[in-house]
């Protein structure tokens, strides 16, 4: 391999998309050619440095604008009509390709249902789809390394009509183990919205003993007072009896306990 041929393959070598035989040829060439060796070493170092350039995060406005655009697109009657016609004329799905007559019949029934009140069903389905998407976004954001994004994830979760089990578990995990106190506080507020769910109630009661931040402890005490259950009272008693409890928190818990009893 000469210098020209070696240089033609430098890009493959850097990207790592190269056959072992070609790579071996390049290695053999640079072992004997100082000029090519210096060049590839310099370029490889820079290539590696490019790879560690930190990614920058867009502002929350981008996400908000995107979802506003998507919601707008979905709910615009003109777009829905376009969807309808696209489905009508589409032969991509095997069911539609089966026979044109059958398709007409199916779509005819669909149109009938739509005209006789099926429209509201479509809107309900649309709403459900949007809720599902929100849930997916919330779960994805709750996992992010940035506390700001996790807070945003909690805010997305709080906006759900009825969060699924995964979202509840994720919120409880944030409450019990997130390193950022603001995230834990936001999780308390979000879970408060879903306190009618027995699993949420149970998790909130259990979480009190796991908290060490006075701010989160006070927020949870207030929430347990709202729940007004014997198990909540037991959790408060246990907290009051624990060592190293901040005096203000202890006082708050004692007042709360009296309210429950």
């Amino acid at each position, binding site marked *: 391999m000469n210098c020209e041929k070696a240089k033609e393959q430098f890009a493959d070598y850097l990207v790592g998309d190269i056959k072992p035989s070609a790579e071996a040829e390049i290695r053999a060439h640079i072992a004997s050619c100082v000029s090519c060796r210096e060049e590839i070493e310099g370029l490889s170092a*820079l290539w590696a440095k490019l790879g560690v350039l930190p990614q920058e995060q867009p502002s929350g406005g981008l996400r908000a604008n995107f979802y506003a655009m998507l919601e707008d697109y979905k709910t615009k009657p003109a777009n829905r009509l376009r969807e309808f016609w696209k489905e009508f004329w589409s032969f991509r799905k095997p069911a539609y390709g089966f026979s044109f007559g059958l398709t007409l019949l199916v779509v005819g029934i669909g149109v009938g249902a739509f005209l006789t009140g099926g429209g509201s069903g479509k809107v309900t389905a649309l709403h459900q789809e949007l809720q599902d998407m929100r849930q997916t976004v919330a779960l994805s954001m709750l996992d992010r390394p940035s506390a700001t994004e996790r807070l945003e994830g909690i805010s997305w979760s709080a906006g759900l009509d009825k969060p699924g089990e995964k979202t509840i578990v994720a919120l409880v995990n944030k409450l019990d183990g997130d390193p950022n106190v603001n995230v834990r506080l936001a999780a308390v507020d979000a879970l408060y919205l879903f306190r009618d769910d027995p699993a949420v109630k149970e998790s909130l009661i259990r979480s009190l003993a796991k908290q060490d931040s006075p701010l989160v402890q006070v927020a949870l005490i207030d929430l347990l007072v709202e729940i007004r259950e014997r198990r909540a009272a037991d959790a408060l008693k246990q907290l009051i009896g624990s060592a190293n409890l901040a005096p203000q928190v202890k006082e708050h818990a004692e007042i709360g306990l009296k309210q429950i009893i």
Partner: protein
Amino acid sequence: MAPSDNEVMEAVRDGKVEKLAILFERHQVMLYNFFLRLTGNRSASEDLVQDVFIRILKYRAGYQGQSKFAVWMFQIARNAHIDHLRKQRGDLPLDEQFAEPAAREPRPEVRLEAEQDIALIRRALDLLPWKKREILMLSRFQDLKLREIADLLGCQVGTVKAQVHRALKELSHIYLELREGRTS
């Protein structure tokens, strides 16, 4: 297992437009950084990401699913960026637009050595003509193979290899100059 980009895009094409949110969540940060490197402007980059997803909705019927979704998406992203340049530069011939390096203010000094090095690389990238910056962005950060970049740019794979090599050499040259300027 999570559906692939292609499967999600096919669902979007077939009417489940709400699934576009999945693609948005997967690619928005990568696209934002792609545009940020090309424009140097945060607000314009966010607008361009939004523009890409609007165009995906607009042209979804034409999605064939034969090539990788990212290749199709970056074709749209490049067109959005070229339109953005046209709007910015009025009647300049496209060739001149391509040749002109981006002009930007230097970034503020940073303290740590590693951070200084990152700042230098960013500055060097900023000084690279945008077409060369683009080929480096596509080959280094977007998880695209050289053959896929060739499809995206509509050229031979050999041309892409040569472009990557030239762009990296020029970047290296600028970077070393900046580093010498800093230490001298």
